[in-house]
Protein backbone atom coordinates (compact mmCIF):
# COMPACT_ATOMS: atom_id res chain seq x y z
CA UNK A 1 0.00 0.00 0.00
CA UNK A 2 2.51 2.48 1.23
CA UNK A 3 4.96 1.46 -1.45
CA UNK A 4 2.35 2.17 -4.09
CA UNK A 5 1.88 5.69 -2.81
CA UNK A 6 5.56 6.34 -2.80
CA UNK A 7 5.83 4.95 -6.29
CA UNK A 8 3.07 7.15 -7.68
CA UNK A 9 4.58 10.19 -5.98
CA UNK A 10 7.84 9.35 -7.64
CA UNK A 11 6.16 9.14 -11.01
CA UNK A 12 4.53 12.53 -10.54
CA UNK A 13 7.81 13.97 -9.42
CA UNK A 14 9.61 12.57 -12.42
CA UNK A 15 6.98 14.03 -14.77
CA UNK A 16 7.35 17.44 -13.12
CA UNK A 17 11.09 17.61 -13.65
CA UNK A 18 10.98 15.93 -17.05
CA UNK A 19 11.47 19.32 -18.75
CA UNK A 20 14.90 19.82 -17.20
CA UNK A 21 18.04 17.92 -18.04
CA UNK A 22 19.27 17.94 -14.46
CA UNK A 23 16.84 16.27 -12.07
CA UNK A 24 18.23 17.95 -8.91
CA UNK A 25 18.11 21.53 -10.19
CA UNK A 26 14.76 23.29 -10.53
CA UNK A 27 13.83 26.47 -12.35
CA UNK A 28 15.12 29.39 -10.32
CA UNK A 29 14.79 33.10 -9.81
CA UNK A 30 17.88 35.32 -9.85
CA UNK A 31 18.15 38.60 -7.96
CA UNK A 32 19.76 41.56 -9.71
CA UNK A 33 20.23 45.24 -8.90
CA UNK A 34 19.75 47.57 -11.88
CA UNK A 35 21.03 49.84 -13.28
CA UNK A 36 24.73 49.06 -13.22
CA UNK A 37 25.90 49.49 -16.78
CA UNK A 38 27.14 47.50 -18.62
CA UNK A 39 26.70 44.59 -16.21
CA UNK A 40 22.94 44.95 -15.81
CA UNK A 41 20.63 47.67 -17.03
CA UNK A 42 17.41 48.28 -18.93
CA UNK A 43 17.11 49.03 -22.63
CA UNK A 44 15.01 52.08 -23.53
CA UNK A 45 12.13 49.60 -24.03
CA UNK A 46 12.46 48.48 -20.40
CA UNK A 47 13.99 45.05 -21.12
CA UNK A 48 16.66 43.83 -18.73
CA UNK A 49 20.01 43.40 -20.44
CA UNK A 50 23.75 43.48 -19.73
CA UNK A 51 26.66 41.14 -19.27
CA UNK A 52 25.26 39.45 -16.16
CA UNK A 53 21.83 39.03 -17.72
CA UNK A 54 23.14 37.55 -20.99
CA UNK A 55 25.63 35.28 -19.27
CA UNK A 56 23.03 34.23 -16.68
CA UNK A 57 20.52 33.35 -19.38
CA UNK A 58 23.19 31.42 -21.29
CA UNK A 59 24.12 29.51 -18.13
CA UNK A 60 20.48 28.64 -17.43
CA UNK A 61 20.03 27.48 -21.03
CA UNK A 62 23.16 25.34 -20.71
CA UNK A 63 21.87 23.74 -17.48
CA UNK A 64 18.44 23.39 -19.07
CA UNK A 65 16.34 25.37 -16.59
CA UNK A 66 14.16 28.46 -16.78
CA UNK A 67 15.52 31.52 -15.01
CA UNK A 68 13.46 34.51 -14.00
CA UNK A 69 15.14 37.82 -13.05
CA UNK A 70 14.00 39.62 -9.91
CA UNK A 71 15.03 43.24 -9.45
CA UNK A 72 16.19 44.02 -5.91
CA UNK A 73 18.00 47.04 -4.41
CA UNK A 74 21.65 46.43 -3.63
CA UNK A 75 21.70 47.02 0.12
CA UNK A 76 19.02 44.36 0.69
CA UNK A 77 20.21 41.89 -1.90
CA UNK A 78 21.78 39.28 0.42
CA UNK A 79 18.95 39.37 2.99
CA UNK A 80 16.56 38.91 0.03
CA UNK A 81 18.39 35.74 -0.97
CA UNK A 82 18.12 34.39 2.55
CA UNK A 83 14.45 35.37 2.71
CA UNK A 84 13.93 33.19 -0.42
CA UNK A 85 12.71 36.06 -2.58
CA UNK A 86 15.06 34.52 -5.19
CA UNK A 87 17.48 31.61 -5.32
CA UNK A 88 20.65 33.21 -6.63
CA UNK A 89 22.26 36.63 -7.01
CA UNK A 90 24.02 37.54 -10.23
CA UNK A 91 24.64 41.22 -9.87
CA UNK A 92 28.34 42.13 -10.15
CA UNK A 93 28.91 40.77 -6.65
CA UNK A 94 32.54 40.55 -5.62
CA UNK A 95 33.56 37.38 -3.83
CA UNK A 96 35.07 38.11 -0.42
CA UNK A 97 35.38 36.49 3.00
CA UNK A 98 32.69 38.58 4.71
CA UNK A 99 30.13 37.67 2.10
CA UNK A 100 31.28 34.05 2.05
CA UNK A 101 30.07 33.74 5.65
CA UNK A 102 26.58 34.57 4.37
CA UNK A 103 26.36 32.97 0.93
CA UNK A 104 27.85 30.25 -1.25
CA UNK A 105 29.72 31.58 -4.29
CA UNK A 106 30.16 30.06 -7.73
CA UNK A 107 33.57 30.24 -9.39
CA UNK A 108 34.38 33.83 -10.38
CA UNK A 109 32.98 34.62 -13.83
CA UNK A 110 34.75 37.94 -14.38
CA UNK A 111 37.36 39.94 -12.48
CA UNK A 112 37.07 43.66 -13.09
CA UNK A 113 39.27 46.26 -11.38
CA UNK A 114 37.97 49.33 -9.58
CA UNK A 115 39.06 52.84 -10.49
CA UNK A 116 38.80 56.49 -9.51
CA UNK A 117 36.73 58.72 -11.78
CA UNK A 118 36.62 62.50 -11.69
CA UNK A 119 35.18 65.36 -13.75
CA UNK A 120 37.65 66.48 -16.42
CA UNK A 121 38.27 69.88 -14.83
CA UNK A 122 39.15 68.50 -11.37
CA UNK A 123 42.89 68.21 -10.80
CA UNK A 124 43.75 65.23 -8.61
CA UNK A 125 47.15 63.57 -8.42
CA UNK A 126 47.63 59.85 -7.88
CA UNK A 127 45.06 59.07 -5.14
CA UNK A 128 46.60 59.11 -1.66
CA UNK A 129 45.89 60.60 1.76
CA UNK A 130 47.38 63.92 0.66
CA UNK A 131 45.77 64.29 -2.74
CA UNK A 132 42.30 63.28 -1.56
CA UNK A 133 42.33 65.32 1.64
CA UNK A 134 39.22 67.45 2.10
CA UNK A 135 37.57 66.23 -1.10
CA UNK A 136 34.09 64.74 -1.39
CA UNK A 137 34.24 61.14 -2.63
CA UNK A 138 31.28 59.15 -3.92
CA UNK A 139 30.66 55.42 -3.50
CA UNK A 140 27.64 53.15 -3.67
CA UNK A 141 26.53 52.20 -0.17
CA UNK A 142 27.51 48.72 0.97
CA UNK A 143 29.82 47.98 -1.97
CA UNK A 144 33.41 46.82 -1.56
CA UNK A 145 34.40 50.25 -2.91
CA UNK A 146 32.51 51.75 0.05
CA UNK A 147 34.51 49.59 2.50
CA UNK A 148 37.81 50.40 0.80
CA UNK A 149 37.28 54.16 0.61
CA UNK A 150 35.85 54.34 4.13
CA UNK A 151 38.83 52.52 5.63
CA UNK A 152 41.54 54.14 3.54
CA UNK A 153 40.30 57.73 3.17
CA UNK A 154 37.33 58.05 5.57
CA UNK A 155 39.42 60.11 7.99
CA UNK A 156 40.75 62.66 5.50
CA UNK A 157 37.87 63.02 3.03
CA UNK A 158 34.07 63.26 3.07
CA UNK A 159 32.53 60.01 1.86
CA UNK A 160 29.08 60.34 0.27
CA UNK A 161 27.22 57.03 0.07
CA UNK A 162 24.56 56.64 -2.61
CA UNK A 163 21.76 54.13 -2.97
CA UNK A 164 22.18 53.88 -6.75
CA UNK A 165 24.95 54.63 -9.23
CA UNK A 166 22.56 57.03 -11.02
CA UNK A 167 22.27 59.30 -7.97
CA UNK A 168 26.04 59.36 -7.79
CA UNK A 169 26.41 60.34 -11.45
CA UNK A 170 23.85 63.12 -10.93
CA UNK A 171 25.84 64.55 -8.03
CA UNK A 172 29.04 64.25 -10.05
CA UNK A 173 27.39 66.19 -12.90
CA UNK A 174 26.26 68.90 -10.52
CA UNK A 175 29.73 69.37 -9.09
CA UNK A 176 28.93 68.02 -5.63
CA UNK A 177 31.44 65.18 -5.97
CA UNK A 178 35.15 65.63 -6.61
CA UNK A 179 35.72 61.96 -7.39
CA UNK A 180 33.94 58.62 -7.36
CA UNK A 181 35.34 55.14 -6.80
CA UNK A 182 33.63 52.54 -8.97
CA UNK A 183 34.01 49.20 -10.67
CA UNK A 184 36.00 50.13 -13.75
CA UNK A 185 33.59 48.73 -16.40
CA UNK A 186 30.65 50.46 -14.70
CA UNK A 187 32.46 53.79 -14.49
CA UNK A 188 33.61 53.43 -18.08
CA UNK A 189 30.12 52.97 -19.44
CA UNK A 190 28.16 55.33 -17.13
CA UNK A 191 30.72 58.15 -17.12
CA UNK A 192 33.35 57.90 -19.86
CA UNK A 193 31.27 56.47 -22.71
CA UNK A 194 27.93 58.06 -21.88
CA UNK A 195 28.82 61.35 -23.55
CA UNK A 196 26.93 63.12 -20.74
CA UNK A 197 29.95 65.12 -19.63
CA UNK A 198 33.69 65.34 -19.52
CA UNK A 199 35.17 62.70 -17.22
CA UNK A 200 38.50 61.00 -16.75
CA UNK A 201 40.11 58.15 -14.88
CA UNK A 202 42.43 59.20 -12.08
CA UNK A 203 45.47 57.10 -11.26
CA UNK A 204 45.87 53.37 -11.86
CA UNK A 205 43.13 50.77 -11.80
CA UNK A 206 42.91 49.30 -8.30
CA UNK A 207 42.77 45.55 -7.57
CA UNK A 208 44.76 45.31 -4.32
CA UNK A 209 44.52 44.52 -1.43
CA UNK A 210 42.63 41.27 -1.96
CA UNK A 211 40.84 41.57 1.38
CA UNK A 212 38.80 44.40 -0.19
CA UNK A 213 38.80 43.52 -3.87
CA UNK A 214 38.35 39.80 -3.54
CA UNK A 215 38.67 37.30 -6.29
CA UNK A 216 36.26 38.63 -8.88
CA UNK A 217 32.51 38.54 -9.39
CA UNK A 218 30.65 35.39 -8.42
CA UNK A 219 27.08 34.14 -8.47
CA UNK A 220 25.79 33.86 -4.89
CA UNK A 221 23.60 31.03 -3.66
CA UNK A 222 22.24 30.02 -0.27
CA UNK A 223 24.81 27.95 1.65
CA UNK A 224 22.77 24.76 1.39
CA UNK A 225 22.19 24.92 -2.40
CA UNK A 226 25.44 23.13 -3.18
CA UNK A 227 24.08 21.23 -6.20
CA UNK A 228 22.81 24.42 -7.78
CA UNK A 229 26.22 26.07 -7.43
CA UNK A 230 27.92 22.99 -8.85
CA UNK A 231 25.57 23.01 -11.85
CA UNK A 232 26.40 26.67 -12.55
CA UNK A 233 30.15 26.06 -12.20
CA UNK A 234 29.94 23.21 -14.68
CA UNK A 235 27.91 25.29 -17.14
CA UNK A 236 30.33 28.22 -16.78
CA UNK A 237 33.27 25.96 -17.65
CA UNK A 238 31.40 24.70 -20.73
CA UNK A 239 30.54 28.22 -21.94
CA UNK A 240 34.13 29.33 -21.46
CA UNK A 241 35.48 26.43 -23.52
CA UNK A 242 32.93 26.61 -26.37
CA UNK A 243 33.40 30.35 -26.97
CA UNK A 244 29.94 31.51 -25.86
CA UNK A 245 31.50 33.34 -22.91
CA UNK A 246 33.93 35.26 -25.13
CA UNK A 247 31.10 36.26 -27.45
CA UNK A 248 29.06 37.74 -24.59
CA UNK A 249 32.16 39.40 -23.14
CA UNK A 250 32.94 41.05 -26.49
CA UNK A 251 29.38 42.38 -26.76
CA UNK A 252 29.74 44.46 -23.60
CA UNK A 253 33.44 45.14 -23.19
CA UNK A 254 34.71 45.05 -26.75
CA UNK A 255 37.74 43.09 -27.83
CA UNK A 256 40.53 43.08 -25.26
Amino acid at each position, binding site marked *: MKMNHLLSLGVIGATLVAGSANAEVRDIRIGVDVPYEPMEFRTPEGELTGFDIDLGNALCAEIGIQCEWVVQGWDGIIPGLQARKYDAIMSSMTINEQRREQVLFSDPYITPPSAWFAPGDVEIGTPSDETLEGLTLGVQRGTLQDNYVTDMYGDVADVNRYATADDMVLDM*DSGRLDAAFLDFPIGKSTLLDSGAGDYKVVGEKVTEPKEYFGEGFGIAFRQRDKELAAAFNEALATLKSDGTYDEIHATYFGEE
Partner: protein
Amino acid sequence: MDALMTWLETALADNSIFTLQTLGYYGEGLVTTVQLVFLSLIIGLVLAVPLAIGRGSTYRWVSLPIFLYCYVFRGTPLLVQLYLIYYGVVFVDGIQETWLWVILEKPFVPALIAFTLNTAAYTTEIFRGAIKSTDRGEIEAARAYGMSKGLMLRRIVLPSAFRRALPAYGNEVIFMLHASAIASVVTIMDLTGAARFVYARFYAPFDAFLFVAAIYLCLTFGILYLFRYLERRLLAHLKPASG
Protein backbone atom coordinates in the same frame (compact mmCIF):
# COMPACT_ATOMS: atom_id res chain seq x y z
CA MET B 1 38.09 58.98 29.91
CA ASP B 2 40.84 56.41 29.39
CA ALA B 3 39.13 54.13 31.86
CA LEU B 4 35.91 54.47 29.87
CA MET B 5 37.71 53.62 26.62
CA THR B 6 39.34 50.52 28.10
CA TRP B 7 36.00 49.46 29.53
CA LEU B 8 34.40 49.96 26.09
CA GLU B 9 37.13 47.97 24.40
CA THR B 10 36.72 45.00 26.72
CA ALA B 11 32.93 45.20 26.45
CA LEU B 12 33.21 45.17 22.64
CA ALA B 13 36.00 42.61 22.46
CA ASP B 14 33.93 39.65 21.33
CA ASN B 15 31.71 41.07 18.64
CA SER B 16 32.61 42.02 15.11
CA ILE B 17 29.81 44.50 14.40
CA PHE B 18 29.80 47.04 17.23
CA THR B 19 33.42 48.12 17.17
CA LEU B 20 34.62 51.55 18.28
CA GLN B 21 34.51 52.53 14.61
CA THR B 22 30.85 51.67 14.07
CA LEU B 23 29.88 53.17 17.44
CA GLY B 24 31.63 56.29 16.19
CA TYR B 25 29.34 56.29 13.13
CA TYR B 26 26.30 55.96 15.37
CA GLY B 27 27.63 58.79 17.57
CA GLU B 28 28.14 61.11 14.61
CA GLY B 29 24.75 60.07 13.29
CA LEU B 30 23.13 60.98 16.59
CA VAL B 31 24.71 64.45 16.52
CA THR B 32 23.61 64.99 12.90
CA THR B 33 20.05 63.83 13.55
CA VAL B 34 19.66 66.01 16.66
CA GLN B 35 21.11 69.04 14.85
CA LEU B 36 18.91 68.55 11.82
CA VAL B 37 15.70 68.00 13.79
CA PHE B 38 16.36 70.68 16.41
CA LEU B 39 17.29 73.38 13.89
CA SER B 40 14.38 72.62 11.57
CA LEU B 41 11.92 72.63 14.50
CA ILE B 42 13.19 75.97 15.86
CA ILE B 43 13.14 77.69 12.46
CA GLY B 44 9.82 76.04 11.60
CA LEU B 45 8.33 77.28 14.87
CA VAL B 46 9.50 80.84 14.28
CA LEU B 47 7.99 80.76 10.77
CA ALA B 48 4.77 79.13 11.89
CA VAL B 49 3.63 81.82 14.34
CA PRO B 50 3.22 84.67 11.82
CA LEU B 51 1.97 82.19 9.22
CA ALA B 52 -0.73 80.91 11.59
CA ILE B 53 -1.86 84.47 12.32
CA GLY B 54 -1.85 85.27 8.59
CA ARG B 55 -3.72 82.08 7.80
CA GLY B 56 -6.67 83.37 9.86
CA SER B 57 -6.57 86.78 8.22
CA THR B 58 -9.71 88.13 6.59
CA TYR B 59 -7.61 89.44 3.68
CA ARG B 60 -7.60 86.74 1.07
CA TRP B 61 -4.31 87.87 -0.46
CA VAL B 62 -2.73 87.06 2.89
CA SER B 63 -4.55 83.88 3.82
CA LEU B 64 -4.74 82.24 0.39
CA PRO B 65 -0.98 81.93 -0.30
CA ILE B 66 -0.44 80.56 3.22
CA PHE B 67 -3.27 78.09 2.69
CA LEU B 68 -1.68 76.96 -0.60
CA TYR B 69 1.75 76.61 1.02
CA CYS B 70 0.36 74.46 3.84
CA TYR B 71 -1.72 72.45 1.39
CA VAL B 72 1.25 71.65 -0.86
CA PHE B 73 3.67 70.76 1.94
CA ARG B 74 1.15 68.72 3.90
CA GLY B 75 -0.18 67.12 0.74
CA THR B 76 3.09 65.70 -0.61
CA PRO B 77 5.50 63.21 0.96
CA LEU B 78 8.51 64.67 2.74
CA LEU B 79 10.72 62.28 0.76
CA VAL B 80 9.56 63.84 -2.52
CA GLN B 81 10.15 67.34 -1.16
CA LEU B 82 13.65 66.32 -0.10
CA TYR B 83 14.47 64.86 -3.53
CA LEU B 84 13.16 67.98 -5.26
CA ILE B 85 15.21 70.32 -3.10
CA TYR B 86 18.43 68.25 -3.16
CA TYR B 87 18.48 66.92 -6.74
CA GLY B 88 16.06 69.44 -8.26
CA VAL B 89 18.13 72.56 -7.64
CA VAL B 90 20.94 71.06 -9.72
CA PHE B 91 18.86 71.59 -12.86
CA VAL B 92 18.64 75.35 -12.34
CA ASP B 93 21.10 76.62 -14.96
CA GLY B 94 24.22 78.24 -13.61
CA ILE B 95 23.41 77.67 -9.95
CA GLN B 96 26.95 76.37 -9.42
CA GLU B 97 28.27 79.87 -10.10
CA THR B 98 26.10 81.68 -7.55
CA TRP B 99 26.59 82.02 -3.78
CA LEU B 100 23.58 79.72 -3.29
CA TRP B 101 25.70 76.76 -4.36
CA VAL B 102 28.01 77.26 -1.38
CA ILE B 103 25.15 76.31 0.95
CA LEU B 104 23.32 73.89 -1.36
CA GLU B 105 26.37 71.84 -2.35
CA LYS B 106 26.46 69.79 0.85
CA PRO B 107 23.35 67.75 1.64
CA PHE B 108 22.79 69.23 5.11
CA VAL B 109 21.25 72.55 4.10
CA PRO B 110 18.90 71.13 1.42
CA ALA B 111 17.66 68.61 3.99
CA LEU B 112 17.29 71.35 6.59
CA ILE B 113 15.25 73.45 4.13
CA ALA B 114 12.96 70.54 3.27
CA PHE B 115 12.40 69.60 6.91
CA THR B 116 11.85 73.21 7.99
CA LEU B 117 9.30 73.97 5.28
CA ASN B 118 7.51 70.71 6.06
CA THR B 119 7.31 71.17 9.82
CA ALA B 120 6.41 74.87 9.44
CA ALA B 121 3.38 73.85 7.34
CA TYR B 122 2.15 71.37 9.95
CA THR B 123 2.87 73.70 12.87
CA THR B 124 1.00 76.51 11.12
CA GLU B 125 -2.09 74.32 10.94
CA ILE B 126 -1.73 73.27 14.58
CA PHE B 127 -1.49 76.90 15.74
CA ARG B 128 -4.27 78.06 13.46
CA GLY B 129 -6.58 75.50 15.01
CA ALA B 130 -5.60 76.62 18.50
CA ILE B 131 -6.07 80.29 17.64
CA LYS B 132 -9.44 79.61 16.06
CA SER B 133 -10.69 77.80 19.12
CA THR B 134 -10.05 80.75 21.43
CA ASP B 135 -13.06 81.29 23.68
CA ARG B 136 -15.31 84.01 22.22
CA GLY B 137 -15.87 85.42 25.68
CA GLU B 138 -12.17 86.20 26.07
CA ILE B 139 -12.09 88.09 22.80
CA GLU B 140 -15.21 90.05 23.67
CA ALA B 141 -13.73 90.93 27.06
CA ALA B 142 -10.51 92.10 25.41
CA ARG B 143 -12.51 94.26 23.01
CA ALA B 144 -14.53 95.69 25.87
CA TYR B 145 -11.25 96.80 27.46
CA GLY B 146 -10.51 98.67 24.25
CA MET B 147 -7.49 96.55 23.31
CA SER B 148 -6.15 97.00 19.80
CA LYS B 149 -5.98 93.93 17.55
CA GLY B 150 -2.23 93.56 18.07
CA LEU B 151 -2.41 93.90 21.82
CA MET B 152 -5.28 91.43 22.02
CA LEU B 153 -3.29 88.93 19.92
CA ARG B 154 -0.23 89.32 22.12
CA ARG B 155 -1.85 89.33 25.54
CA ILE B 156 -4.94 87.16 25.13
CA VAL B 157 -5.11 85.01 22.00
CA LEU B 158 -1.54 83.75 21.49
CA PRO B 159 -0.67 82.82 25.10
CA SER B 160 -3.75 80.66 25.49
CA ALA B 161 -3.45 79.27 21.94
CA PHE B 162 0.13 78.13 22.54
CA ARG B 163 -0.93 76.29 25.65
CA ARG B 164 -3.74 74.56 23.84
CA ALA B 165 -1.43 73.68 20.94
CA LEU B 166 1.19 72.12 23.20
CA PRO B 167 0.07 68.45 23.17
CA ALA B 168 -0.45 68.47 19.38
CA TYR B 169 2.89 70.21 18.87
CA GLY B 170 4.64 67.62 21.01
CA ASN B 171 3.35 65.04 18.56
CA GLU B 172 4.70 67.04 15.64
CA VAL B 173 8.14 67.12 17.27
CA ILE B 174 8.17 63.34 17.59
CA PHE B 175 6.93 62.90 14.01
CA MET B 176 9.71 65.20 12.82
CA LEU B 177 12.34 63.15 14.65
CA HIS B 178 11.09 60.00 12.97
CA ALA B 179 10.67 61.65 9.57
CA SER B 180 14.30 62.75 9.71
CA ALA B 181 15.23 59.09 9.11
CA ILE B 182 14.91 59.73 5.37
CA ALA B 183 17.87 62.14 5.41
CA SER B 184 20.18 59.26 4.55
CA VAL B 185 18.78 59.04 1.00
CA VAL B 186 20.65 62.23 0.18
CA THR B 187 23.90 60.81 1.62
CA ILE B 188 23.60 62.40 5.07
CA MET B 189 25.07 60.12 7.74
CA ASP B 190 22.30 60.56 10.29
CA LEU B 191 21.29 57.84 12.75
CA THR B 192 19.49 55.83 10.08
CA GLY B 193 22.35 56.45 7.66
CA ALA B 194 24.76 54.97 10.20
CA ALA B 195 22.45 51.98 10.69
CA ARG B 196 22.20 51.44 6.93
CA PHE B 197 25.97 51.62 6.65
CA VAL B 198 26.47 48.99 9.36
CA TYR B 199 23.71 46.86 7.86
CA ALA B 200 25.20 46.96 4.37
CA ARG B 201 28.73 46.34 5.62
CA PHE B 202 28.05 43.42 7.95
CA TYR B 203 24.77 42.14 6.44
CA ALA B 204 23.29 42.29 9.93
CA PRO B 205 19.89 43.97 9.67
CA PHE B 206 18.70 43.02 13.14
CA ASP B 207 21.74 44.26 15.04
CA ALA B 208 22.09 47.44 13.04
CA PHE B 209 18.45 48.51 13.13
CA LEU B 210 17.52 47.32 16.62
CA PHE B 211 20.41 49.34 17.99
CA VAL B 212 19.32 52.45 16.13
CA ALA B 213 15.68 51.87 17.13
CA ALA B 214 16.78 51.89 20.78
CA ILE B 215 18.50 55.26 20.27
CA TYR B 216 15.36 56.70 18.64
CA LEU B 217 13.32 55.40 21.58
CA CYS B 218 15.60 57.18 24.04
CA LEU B 219 15.31 60.43 22.07
CA THR B 220 11.53 60.08 21.92
CA PHE B 221 11.45 59.46 25.65
CA GLY B 222 13.36 62.70 26.24
CA ILE B 223 10.93 64.65 24.06
CA LEU B 224 7.91 63.10 25.78
CA TYR B 225 9.34 63.98 29.18
CA LEU B 226 10.04 67.57 28.16
CA PHE B 227 6.52 68.08 26.86
CA ARG B 228 5.03 66.40 29.92
CA TYR B 229 6.94 68.88 32.06
CA LEU B 230 5.85 71.83 29.93
CA GLU B 231 2.24 70.73 30.01
CA ARG B 232 2.30 70.35 33.76
CA ARG B 233 3.69 73.85 34.15
CA LEU B 234 1.76 75.69 31.47
CA LEU B 235 -1.55 73.85 31.66
CA ALA B 236 -1.68 73.78 35.48
CA HIS B 237 -4.80 75.93 35.42
CA LEU B 238 -6.70 73.20 33.58
CA LYS B 239 -6.05 70.55 36.21
CA PRO B 240 -8.86 69.79 38.63
CA ALA B 241 -8.25 71.66 41.88
CA SER B 242 -6.98 69.30 44.51
CA GLY B 243 -8.46 69.04 48.01
